[in-house]
């Protein structure tokens, strides 16, 4: 239900009369501070709309924006009044918005949340896992980014509020995101490895893997999905070849060490 646009603002003191706890928690929250009040001077009514009709009707819940069930969109609009910019600019219409994930599903507004982002859970990874719990098994795999150690978090790579890229990657492309921490792979190289230049996730699963270096499959078989050239790339590596250099330890990468790209004039097969 929406509040009447003709209603008048009544101020937080009036609200406090009936909603003492909510007003107190608002006052203690980030939004309730003096600096913000200079920009948004209607306090509770900045989000809930003018409360005049609501108060006059003795607190009729139908006469104020309450953001209860079925009014998630209205709640989001209230937040977007101020936050429709920067990292949140693409929220409206984003995959989370389209799947009815509202601002208040992740953030607390009244009661104190975690950190400056007012998160509902103890940390960001825990928050994301409440819906994306299939990711938990990836994070627990042997090869992983330092997320379970608290050195990285989901939003280091993703913008949950929406992006123009697939999978909410917070950069112009997947590779552009990876290069932020792995700038040594950025090149350009004299010899670029084509799939690596296009998309790191052709070979890597950034969320976690059972294989070294977050690889999607075991080397040499991963390499053999694309390489079947004469000599060793097409060779069948089975139990009879365990102790050969093409499969032992780093397998193909024992020799093709600069597989992301080589800057060596003789590096076209990434061995220099």
């Amino acid at each position, binding site marked *: 239900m929406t509040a009447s646009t003709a209603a008048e603002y009544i101020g937080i003191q009036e609200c406090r009369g009936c909603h003492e706890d909510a007003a107190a928690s608002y006052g203690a929250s980030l939004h309730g501070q003096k600096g913000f009040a200079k920009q948004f001077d209607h306090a509770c009514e900045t989000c809930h709309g003018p409360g005049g009709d609501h108060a006059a009707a003795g607190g009729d819940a139908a006469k104020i924006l309450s953001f209860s069930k079925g009014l998630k969109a209205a709640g989001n609009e209230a937040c977007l009044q101020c936050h429709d910019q920067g990292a949140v600019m693409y929220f409206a219409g984003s995959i989370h918005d389209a799947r009815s994930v509202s601002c208040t599903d992740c953030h607390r507004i009244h009661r104190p949340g975690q950190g400056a982002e007012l998160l509902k859970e103890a940390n960001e990874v825990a928050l994301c896992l409440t819906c994306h719990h299939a990711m938990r098994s990836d994070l627990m795999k042997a090869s992983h980014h330092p997320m379970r150690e608290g050195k990285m978090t989901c939003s280091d790579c993703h913008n949950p509020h929406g992006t123009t890229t697939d999978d909410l990657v917070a950069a*112009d492309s997947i590779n552009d995101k990876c290069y932020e921490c792995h700038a040594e792979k950025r090149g350009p190289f004299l010899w670029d490895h084509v799939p690596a230049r296009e998309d790191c996730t052709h070979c890597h699963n950034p969320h976690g893997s059972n294989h070294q270096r977050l690889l999607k499959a075991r080397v040499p078989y991963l390499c053999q999905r694309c390489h079947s050239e004469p000599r060793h790339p097409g060779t069948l590596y089975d139990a009879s070849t365990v102790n050969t250099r093409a499969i032992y330890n780093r397998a193909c990468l024992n020799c093709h060490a600069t597989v992301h790209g080589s800057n060596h004039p003789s590096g076209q097969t990434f061995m220099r």
Partner: protein
Amino acid sequence: MKTTRAFWAMVVVVLLAPSLCAQEPDLQVTGEAAIGANDVNAKDGEAARFYEYREIPDGLEFSLFDIRLKTADYYLRLKAEDAGQSDERYDLAYNRYGKFRLDYRWDRIPHNFSYGAVTPYTEASPGVWTLPDGLQSQLQGILGDNGTNLPQAMDVLSDALANAHGTPLGLERRRQELDVDYSLSAPMTLSLHYQDESKEGYRAIGAPLGFGNVIELPETVDQNTRQGEIKLSYAKKNMSMDFGIAPSEFENSLSRMLWDNPYRLTDQTPPGKLTYLLGNGSGAGQMALAPNNEAARYFFNGSFKVLKTTRIRASLSYTQLTQDADLLPYTVNTGLEEAYAGALSAPRETADLGADIANAAITLHSAITRSLALNAGYTYYDYDDASEALSIPGHAILDQNWVDEPMDIGYLSYTRESYYANLAWTVWNFTTIEGGYKSKSMERERGDDYEGKNTEDILYLAATTAPLDWLSFRGTYSVSDRDWSLENGGNVVYPVRNDALFAFRRYHEAEREREELTLNLTLMPMDNLGFSFIYLTALNDYEQSQYGLESDDHRSFSFDANYTLGKHNFYAFYGEEENEGLQSARQTTFPPHDVISNDPLNDWTAILADDTTTYGGGLDLAFMNDRMHLNLSYSYSKTDGKLLLSSPEGGNPDAAINFTEGLDSTEYTVAKAQLIYKFNDRLKMSIGEWYEEYTLDDIFRSDIEVDMVHEGYAFYLGASDPDYKYLVSFVQLIYSW
């Protein structure tokens, strides 16, 4: 040193902060500090993986100091985690509400690979790995120029490897970040971001010589990345925009790695083209390391609320990548000058490479009615290689042989485009149905000999409903079909030598059909009881790929449960995941190995599967009127890596010999028990134990050896990843104010 500086800077700020704020009448000072001690017991010996990204000190630990000063106008927060440790982190945050904000973070991230690595090499100077000349000349003398007396040479090298010395394998990142937002006026904000990250240490790298002589060495890493951003944002009620520039610079203090050939001291012209015998060729090898490079991104983002419920957003960016590092010579083998006079020179002085990236996106979101929303958009990403063309007369293979193969180096350029539209219809206030279409394309061009385009059509349908307070459901289904312009001709067949007979496709461009389904059910039958189920499946079928990756499927199911009883909390989770890929290839003709066979009997097929099971749970029990808490938690994860090989009888070899055990299996278990007792509102104590176990069962990497000289002339660092069992007992005092 940086640790000490960061720590003491923090101390100074903490001491000064209260006096600076003493005049504030409404000042609130809150905070928390935790100090404790650990007793770390490695049941099966120390393992680097346990400390992979962290330090668990065996002894005193200053795990947290967090102070927050707050008034109605601003807050100041200083936080130190794991002070003095190799994973320490410091945060400083100052926020003058609505006016000025500053965040500074200093973070140290270890990345330990192995404690067991050994090498006979010595690092003479950064990136230069040498062996005793005596060993090289001894082996050269034994082998001569024709690889004679091989067993005797191997015995000598094995003796040297037996006396190899330990070498560290681990990296450390030190990252500092500064973010400043200054609101010039209510609608306008100036933002600055600066990040400086160093990465130092050693990691394993393959450093081959010849065709059979694999050598694994520590690669010296001493790199630094600096990136910044300056952005001006403007936001009014119905519009916002920002624009700015983000430069980035990567600097590697080492441009190359140089290492001795154990089998040879002096350079030699090899006896024949593309032949290699131990003892031939170069006295050393040289490899190019990651080159210095720079990037500069210019960007604009804008959001415009053109109607009450309609937004148009646009993002534009242009990025320049440049890489102009000095180029190395073709080889360090002076013996190759006979084959090509310029072999010891670089083809040109510097790389002179670059790329221009243009990125544009525009999206529309419109709530056409209260129950119907339209989303549409277009994205464009163009990676245009702008490198100076380079022709080379040939190249040196592994510093051993010169190959006369003149070549114009072909650089990759590509363009991605996509457009989409979808409608979201909300019915009965609690159900949203969304359907849409997306078209994606990828056009590639490399040199003069390759140009191809993928186009993909994607249809998707999603439904979200919450008909009852305790029930919600989300489901998404999508189907996509990717075509390839070269599927019916052109450079589709790889390799080209047998193009009529060998239809091998690379999966990143091959035709593909994909189906994805996601089901998410959440139940809350009681206010204090919740369940969540998720089922995911993604099936990729490369239907035209007779060889290469033919299918790649993912399925997972997961379940979460939470229960609260008064102040007691319980949770549990369970998940199963399957990843399975089917791939095929055809072997070379035996001998001479240089032609792919035409005979289907030489086909082989591999099914690679990773099956993961994850489960765990925990509880938090509150006693004595919330004065005492008992936390118990347990988690377990196991991934079985499986491989099933097959090949038809009559080929060469005529049958695949499957491994009798799984390919690679890992298990990870963590169990923790913690008792927290609150003495009063300010002081509490935590005491407990925590057990962690990791196992690796890998047919190629478990118990990795150093000396493989007798089985392929190779030797490794022996950088093992051993199983571990750690039991950590801990006690901690936490004081809040």
